[in-house]
């Protein structure tokens, strides 16, 4: 199959189109994408798919192993594990997406400003980022959520605050590299203001690493939300949540292993899919990766 040769000076829309053509070649990434779409659909359509009410207590059916009646068994209150899994996915995925959005809105402008203006602004912002990164992310989130009060909004806020500095530092690094490019100097010589340079020249050219980093943030947020809920700082019972449900399953490890295996599997599948998707995007958005792969394995894909 003939591959489109990347043009000598790739335009923005052109490079995205090329990446879109490149992406389906990455088999693991496609599997990841399909899985992620399925997980999202399952969570979004939970009210239609779920066979039972996730918070409905039925003590006569407690700790039942998987059967046709209850696909993944029931928990210690007789609640259907499969239904809770579907509804729990809504929490995890929406927290993940909102954390990504929050980290983007906070981290990208900071990184761009730091990288573009340099000097004292850069120094101040980066020292602040350093201080943030000295805290282990989970501990910072625990402290923030614990002090603000265990609540899903606070979880999102805390995780966004934890992830934004990472993104800001990465965007700053990429911006620094792009800032000295000839086309930026040319734009400035043509009279473009800082706003125009930052948005249409810098942001455009650092967008690929940002996209890849956002998949990392998404996976980290899903795991962090589960960890916080596991510790009792996130979603509060009886609301279904993967992390919270695992914490409750802890007391029934020997009697009802399906209770912790189901959410564990869901989290792992979710994170695996996101990681594969991220790997695929990294390769697809990096023109150098295409050439090397073609050179090593001609026409194999």
């Amino acid at each position, binding site marked *: 199959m003939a591959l489109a040769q990347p043009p000598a000076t790739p335009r923005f829309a052109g490079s995205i189109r090329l990446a879109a053509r490149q992406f389906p070649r990455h088999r693991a990434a496609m599997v990841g994408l399909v899985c992620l779409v399925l997980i999202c659909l399952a969570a979004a359509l939970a009210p239609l798919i779920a066979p039972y009410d996730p918070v409905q207590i039925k003590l006569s059916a407690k700790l039942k192993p998987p059967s046709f009646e209850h696909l993944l068994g029931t928990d210690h209150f007789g609640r259907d594990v499969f239904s809770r899994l579907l509804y729990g996915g809504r929490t995890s995925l929406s927290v993940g997406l909102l954390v990504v959005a929050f980290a983007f809105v906070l981290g990208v402008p900071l990184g761009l400003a730091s990288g573009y203006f340099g000097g004292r602004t850069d120094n101040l912002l980066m020292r602040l980022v350093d201080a943030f990164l000295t805290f282990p992310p989970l501990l910072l989130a*625990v402290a923030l959520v*614990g002090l603000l009060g265990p609540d899903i909004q606070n979880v999102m806020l805390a995780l966004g605050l934890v992830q934004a500095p990472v993104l800001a530092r990465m965007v700053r690094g990429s911006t620094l590299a792009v800032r000295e490019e000839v086309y930026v100097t040319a734009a400035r010589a043509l009279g473009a203001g800082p706003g125009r340079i930052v948005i249409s020249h810098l942001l455009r050219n650092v967008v690929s690493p940002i996209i890849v980093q956002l998949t990392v943030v998404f996976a980290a947020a899903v795991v962090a939300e589960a960890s916080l809920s596991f510790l009792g700082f996130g979603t509060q019972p009886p609301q279904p949540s993967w992390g919270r449900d695992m914490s409750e399953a802890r007391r029934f490890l020997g009697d009802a292993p399906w209770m912790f295996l189901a959410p564990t599997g869901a989290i792992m599948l979710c994170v695996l899919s996101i990681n594969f998707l991220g790997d695929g995007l990294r390769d697809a958005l990096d023109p150098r990766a295409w050439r090397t792969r073609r050179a090593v394995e001609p026409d194999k894909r």
Partner: protein
Amino acid sequence: MWRYLGRRLIQVPLVLIVVSLMTFLITRATPGDPVQIMLGMQTSKEAADAMRAEFNLDRSLPEQYVLWIGKVVTGDLGRSIRLNDTVTSLLAERFPVSLQLALAAMLFALAVSIPLGVLAALRRNTWIDYLCTGYTVLGFAVPNFALALILIYVFSIRLDWLPITGIGSSEAAAGGWWTYIKPFIVPAVALGTLQTAMLTRLLRSSMIDILSQDYMRTARAKGLMPATVVIVHALKNAMIPFVTMATVQFGYMIGIQVTIEYIFAVPGMGSAILNAVVTRDFPVIQGFTLVIAAFFLFANITADMLYALLDPRIRY
């Protein structure tokens, strides 16, 4: 290099001041009054006020911070509001436990990643390489508390080989070395798996990179034993980024133990901070985060120094 080290060490107090200011502001800006949590709702106003005065909580925020940091410089981290003890003596109890768990996890990570990474690089595209890839991919995807539950289920409940709790308990301390080490195994594996995945992947790729270098062919051509070539020429060079990353990750480990300490009832730093956060024990939160941040900073500086020591090409 020594000048570089000096410059880095001078920066440490500065970063720590920013860190301490951040924790201070976070604790004070959030709702929840430690005195009320400690004494309950029904206490008299006088008793509450007396306690606030004892911990300087009745003073203005800048005053509180200056008083606290002034004592920190002399090595006094204050007293816990909740527990009748100083923060330093709490640290003396908790820090060694966390450090031991971190060391155990790191030992596990090294013991697995070095042979696995080297073998996978030597035998590319064979079953051992696929095993390595599978292990790293799964290691990156499984949250440590989920892995902990799986390990408990298999090794403690089904097989009944290893205990779940017991780190830092008096029975473990009274028994022989095996009774002391046994409770560390499951938590250490659960904690160290992510680091194992990272280190294995790093070692495999740097080994592959080095094995294709010209000097490897030269070494083989001049008739050196294959083992010598791999260990002395390849592994020694591949260890440079590996050692740096392992050191940085080690600095991180004390801070990421929270969930593991919670599951295995480990009396370490993480569970102490967890309790302190719930009860708004400000001095404990401030003191413990400061120590964790300092530990992380020193691990980072050590990593940079090791990098320069191991690789003569690096000059600071």
